[in-house]
Structures are given as structure tokens and as C-alpha cells.
């Protein structure tokens, strides 16, 4: 079957993702140690901020984008049982994105792009950094096109049939990302790139921040999507059961696509140049985006309960112990959901526009997103990799024991790192600092938490190395695995037909269009009505 070489393309994408991950994890360890102040000899803001910029770009943009693309190509070809829409174009997207990453990495590692992964103007990076970013985005757009075209061609030959849930999720993510990335693409193409090249003298920082915020919330759902798709379509089967509800998966994917794009504005709660009324409106949207996650939590836990009971678990909680915890995806998802519960609570604080004041830009924020993104999302990425590896490489995992150890180490390491990180934030420590040269008693109160984080970071980097080791050794010398067909979870009630809005996206794109005009129309137009003053570039 897979003679269209989708496995090779998927593997190529996943290897870029996990190589970037390993490099970034080791930088993460260095960062935690540097900022702890325990080793004065290694303290250097220049190195620290080059490292954090690189770590943020690799984790936030490279690991995620390549993971999304590899997962999408492979699940699309296997679930639709049809070849890639355009194989050469798909490889072109891989190479474009990779060249983009290498260009950006050059600027980052030579200290010419120490502007952090958010690259807020008027700090200016080397133009190569922005060019690299554009190539990565263009590569991801080609992936979106592939996903959309594959669904369209499949539907044409099977009118009225439900699109497989896994593909419905991939396309929801592709459409969401096309909408979401328009903001940052406009910022980079019309403002930052020409400005860094000296073609224009100044940029309006308020406009640039608004455009970046447009992208900044939905991008986290772009990262999260493959994880959620795997929870619905791979996990129930790995756990030996069935998916509780297929339509609920579609509803959640649609809600994620529609609601997450118009709410990035909450990243501007503390900025002066947007009116309170718009901030309030976006607070409501922000709370609504919790709904698909709550629905997902319910459906996934219900599916797991079915599996546990099928395997003889009884009683209120007995089914939990009966789950096949030796399956990497089951353990990864279980640990991931645990961290998500903690992270979700923190998210409610951030989202409420009054409470946010206390934690805005403090260490609470990196603590929060390491828990959810570095914890939940990364764990499920690992679970997906372990689940797909035997199918992609034709070889079984080399050492199942080490695989489970790696997952547990990561979860424990992340708790030990992220809990004190939240605490530092509540005690007022700003994020993004390499040292604490302030003359206040708070500094002494911060120290124990920073020291604790060093232990967490050690566990995490050990786990990252182990992940890489597991993937390499399995591919190189795992036992041959002849069964390379990827099977998806069956729903409890088979879906034979669906109302149109649950089997396509036309109406949802229209809704999103009107919502975006309401949410961002005036906030963006105002910059052209006001007498604004642009900012000249500054080096770090």
C-alpha cells in the first residue's frame, strides 16, 4: 500500500521536529541553571537571551510545525486511503520550511536575533531571521493546501459520506492556521522585513503588536490540534476500546477552529492602545474557548472508561487501573491530561482580565505554558511518535520499559519545574530575566524556587535524551514489525451520515469571517485613523 512514500515524508518531518526538540531541551537546562544564580561563572545576558530566543523558536515554531505536518501527511494518506494530493509540492514544503529554520538558526546562534520568539519591535533582528520565519510559514501553508485538497478530492468521489474524523481534524487545523497566520504574516511581510532591510524607516508598534496578537492565541491550538486529534482517533483503540462519540469530536474541532482565532486580543489586556470595551468582548471569547477542551475531556475520559471496563475494571475508579498502561500512547495521554487539569486552572486566572494584572509577564506565565505546552502537548507528541514509529519504520520499539520511563520522567520533571515557576510569578518575579540584580527582599524569597527548578530541568533533559535514544535505536535495530497498517478508533455508534455543517467547513469560514471583522476590524483600522508615530529600529 503506502507506495506514495508518505511514511518517508512523515518521518522526515518528525525527525526535524525531535532534533529541534532535543537541542532546545538542552538549552532549556542551561537557561534554568544560568538564571538560578548558583553558578556565577556562567552568567551572561548575551548568551542567555540568545539561548532563550533559540529555545523558544525551536520549541514553539519548529517542533510544533514539523510535528503537525508529519502527523497530517501520514494520517491523511492512511485514513483516506489515497496518495498525497501533490507529492512534490509536499516535499517542497518540507525543504522550504527546513531552509527557513536553518536561516533563522544562523541568525539566532550568532546572537543576531536575540529578540525572543515573539520578536516584538522596535527591537530589530537580522533580516535573515525574518526571511527564515517567512519560509517556515510558507512551508506550513503548503501543508494546509495539501490537507484541504485531499479532503476535497476524497469527498468528490464519495458524495455524502462522512469524512474520517482524523482528517476532519487535520483540515480544521489547516483552515484555522491559514486564518491565524495571516496576522503574523502581515506583520513580518509589511512591517518587520522591509523595516529591517531599511526600506521603511519606522513601524507602528501598536499595529505590529495587534497583528501578532491575532496569531498568538490560535497558534497554541495549532500546536495542540494533533494532540487532540490523537486523543480522539488513536487513543481509544490503543486503550483497547472505542471512541465514545464521533460527532462530539467534530463539534470540538469546529469550535477550536472558529473560537480560537478571534481571541488572541487577550494578549493585549495590558497594552494601552486598545479600548477596554474590546478587551472585555475578547474576554468572553476567551472563556468560550474552554468549552471544546471541556467537551474533549469528557469524551476522552468516557472513551477510556469504556476501555477499562471492557478489560474487566469495575467500580467507580477501578477501570483506571485496568487500562493498558504499558501502551505508550495511553500513559502519555494519562499523564498529559493530569498536567492539563493543573494548567487549565492557571489559564482561567490569566484569562480573567482583572486577575491577569497580578501575573502578567511574571514567571507565572512561562510556568503556565510549560505545564500545558511543554507538559501536556509535548507528552502527547511523544505518545504519537511512539505509536506511529513501528508503522513508519517497520520496526518495533526497541525497549518498551525505557519508553515508559521516559514518559514518567518527563511528567515528574515538568511538575518539579513548573510548580515553583508559578510560585515565583506570584512572588512578583518578572519573566525573561537572566539574573535578579534588584535590591528587594523578594530576591531572597525567590532563591529556593529557582534551585528546585534546576532539579526539574535535570529530569527533563534526561528524559529528552532518552526520547531521542528510544527513537534512534528503535528505527535502527528494533525487531521487524510486518504490520504497518495504522488503524483508527471506531466510535461506539457508527456514523453513517452527518448534517452538512459537521462534514465540511464552508459555513464555519463565513462565521469566522464576520467574527474577525467584528473582533479586529476597528482595533486595526484605528491605527490608520489616529495620528500615530512609528518607531525606529533598535539593536538588542
Amino acid at each position: 500500500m503506502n507506495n506514495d512514500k508518505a511514511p518517508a515524508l512523515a518521518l522526515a518531518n518528525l525527525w526535524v521536529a525531535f532534533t529541534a526538540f532535543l537541542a532546545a531541551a538542552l538549552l532549556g537546562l542551561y537557561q534554568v541553571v544560568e538564571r538560578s544564580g548558583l553558578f556565577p561563572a556562567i552568567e551572561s545576558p548575551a548568551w542567555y537571551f540568545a539561548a532563550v530566543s533559540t529555545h523558544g523558536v525551536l520549541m514553539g515554531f519548529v517542533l510544533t510545525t514539523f510535528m503537525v505536518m508529519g502527523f497530517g501527511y501520514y494520517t491523511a494518506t492512511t485514513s483516506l486511503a489515497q496518495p498525497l494530493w501533490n507529492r512534490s509540492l509536499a516535499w517542497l514544503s518540507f525543504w522550504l520550511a527546513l531552509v527557513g529554520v536553518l536561516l533563522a538558526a544562523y541568525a539566532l546562534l550568532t546572537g543576531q536575533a536575540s529578540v525572543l520568539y515573539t520578536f516584538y519591535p522596535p527591537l530589530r533582528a537580522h533580516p535573515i531571521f525574518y526571511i527564515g520565519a517567512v519560509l517556515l510559514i510558507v512551508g506550513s501553508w503548503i501543508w494546509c493546501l495539501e490537507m484541504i485538497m485531499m479532503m476535497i478530492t476524497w469527498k468528490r468521489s464519495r458524495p455524502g459520506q462522512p469524512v474520517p474524523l482524523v482528517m476532519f481534524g487535520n483540515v480544521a487545523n489547516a483552515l484555522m492556521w491559514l486564518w491565524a497566520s495571516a496576522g503574523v504574516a502581515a506583520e513580518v511581510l509589511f512591517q518587520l522585513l522591509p523595516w529591517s532591510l531599511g526600506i521603511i524607516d519606522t513601524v507602528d508598534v501598536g499595529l505590529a503588536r495587534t497583528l501578532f496578537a491575532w496569531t498568538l492565541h490560535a497558534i497554541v491550538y495549532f500546536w495542540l490540534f494533533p494532540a487532540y486529534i490523537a486523543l480522539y482517533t488513536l487513543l481509544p483503540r490503543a486503550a483497547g476500546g472505542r471512541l465514545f462519540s464521533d460527532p462530539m469530536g467534530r463539534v470540538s474541532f469546529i469550535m477550536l477552529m472558529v473560537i480560537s482565532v478571534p481571541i488572541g486580543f487577550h494578549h493585549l489586556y495590558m497594552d494601552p492602545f486598545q479600548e477596554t470595551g474590546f478587551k472585555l468582548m475578547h474576554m468572553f471569547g476567551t472563556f468560550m474557548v474552554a468549552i471544546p477542551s471541556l467537551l474533549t475531556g469528557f469524551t476522552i475520559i468516557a472513551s477510556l472508561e469504556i476501555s477499562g471496563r471492557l478489560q474487566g475494571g469495575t467500580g467507580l475508579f477501578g477501570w483506571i487501573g485496568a487500562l493498558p498502561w504499558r501502551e505508550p500512547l495511553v500513559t502519555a495521554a494519562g499523564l498529559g491530561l493530569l498536567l492539563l487539569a493543573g494548567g487549565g486552572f492557571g489559564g482561567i486566572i490569566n484569562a480573567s482580565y482583572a486577575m491577569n494584572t497580578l501575573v502578567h509577564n511574571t514567571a507565572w506565565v512561562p510556568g503556565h505554558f510549560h505545564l500545558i505546552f511543554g507538559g501536556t502537548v509535548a507528552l502527547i507528541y511523544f505518545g504519537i511518535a511512539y505509536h506511529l514509529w513501528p508503522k513508519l519504520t517497520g520496526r518495533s520499539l526497541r525497549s518498551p520499559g525505557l519508553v515508559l520511563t521516559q514518559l514518567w520522567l518527563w511528567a515528574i520533571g515538568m511538575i518539579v519545574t513548573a510548580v515553583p515557576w508559578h510560585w515565583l510569578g506570584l512572588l512578583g518575579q518578572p519573566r525573561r530575566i537572566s539574573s535578579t540584580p534588584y535590591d528587594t527582599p523578594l530576591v531572597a524569597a525567590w532563591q529556593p524556587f529557582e534551585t528546585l527548578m534546576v532539579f526539574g530541568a535535570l529530569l527533563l533533559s534526561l528524559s529528552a535524551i532518552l526520547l531521542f535514544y528510544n527513537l534512534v535505536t528503535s528505527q535502527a535495530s528494533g525487531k521487524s514489525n510486518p504490520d504497518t497498517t495504522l488503524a483508527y478508533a471506531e466510535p461506539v455508534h457508527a456514523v453513517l451520515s452527518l448534517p452538512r455543517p459537521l462534514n465540511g467547513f464552508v459555513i464555519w469560514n463565513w462565521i469566522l469571517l464576520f467574527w474577525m471583522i467584528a473582533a479586529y476590524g476597528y482595533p486595526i483600522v484605528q491605527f490608520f485613523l489616529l495620528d500615530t508615530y512609528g518607531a525606529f529600529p533598535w539593536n538588542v
Partner: protein
Amino acid sequence: MHIDPLERRWIILTLVLMLAITGVLLGYAIAANLHPPSNVETIDSTRLHLTPEFAEDKLGVAKNPDGTLTVTMVAGRYGFYPQHVEVPVATPVTFRIASADVLHGVHVPLTNLSTMIVPGYVSEVTTLFEKTGEYPLLCNEYCGLGHDHMWSRLTVISPQ
């Protein structure tokens, strides 16, 4: 299409929960008159020293006719100027801050004095300090390699 009764109940519960949380937050924000620091006002950040408000000799604490205070400050790499500000406890204080260069943020830990400071715009935030003492004003947005060193002092004193 099949929807389980349990599922239907969970959907309703989720909606009620979200409405309740937003309701509580909104009610509280209105009752306590809390709002984030919005202030749509532009300024030419390259010419602060030529403006009547942000020229060097105009910075600092000023008393308004109604007894409230206004503190005018400039944020620039790497400090908030003037570098030491003294205000009385339990008095409404309005901070007006402009950036002379890049993006900054200011946060006084354990209080709700927090706002981004964006070149080209004037930030304004009003608060009231409930406890006397020495507080640091910390920059909380990365503004360059010296970002760690960007801070100033705030002293909250009891009224004479």
C-alpha cells in the same frame, strides 16, 4: 447522529459553568470598577524631552487640585525615571508613563500596578497602595540585553 443523554447533560453543565465564571468576573469588575490599563493616546517617543509633559524637569510626583496625585515617568533602557518615587499610602495615584525607546513593561510586585509601555503611546494607570513600604518597580518586558537591570524604587509613606 447519536447524542448520549449523559453527554447532553455535560454540554449544558459546561455552558452554565462558563456563563457563571464570566458572570462572576464581570460582576466583580463592575462592582469594584476594575479595568485593564487602556489609554488610546499617541506621542512621538523620539521627542519626549521636547514635550511639556515628559521633559526631564517635569517628571515626578505632582499634586492635583482634587487631592489625587499624578506621577509622570519616562521608561528608557535601562531604568524608570525619576529613579525614586515617593507617594502616600491610601491615596489614588495616576501613573503616566511613556517610553523613550523600545517596548517595556512595569510591574510593582504584589500590587496591581502593571502596564505595558509601548513606544508611540502613553500608558496611564490609576491605583492606590494599601501598605507602606519600599517597593521595586520592575521592567517586565524584554527590552534588550540589559533588561535584568531595568528597575527603580517606589516608596509608599504614611501621610504626615
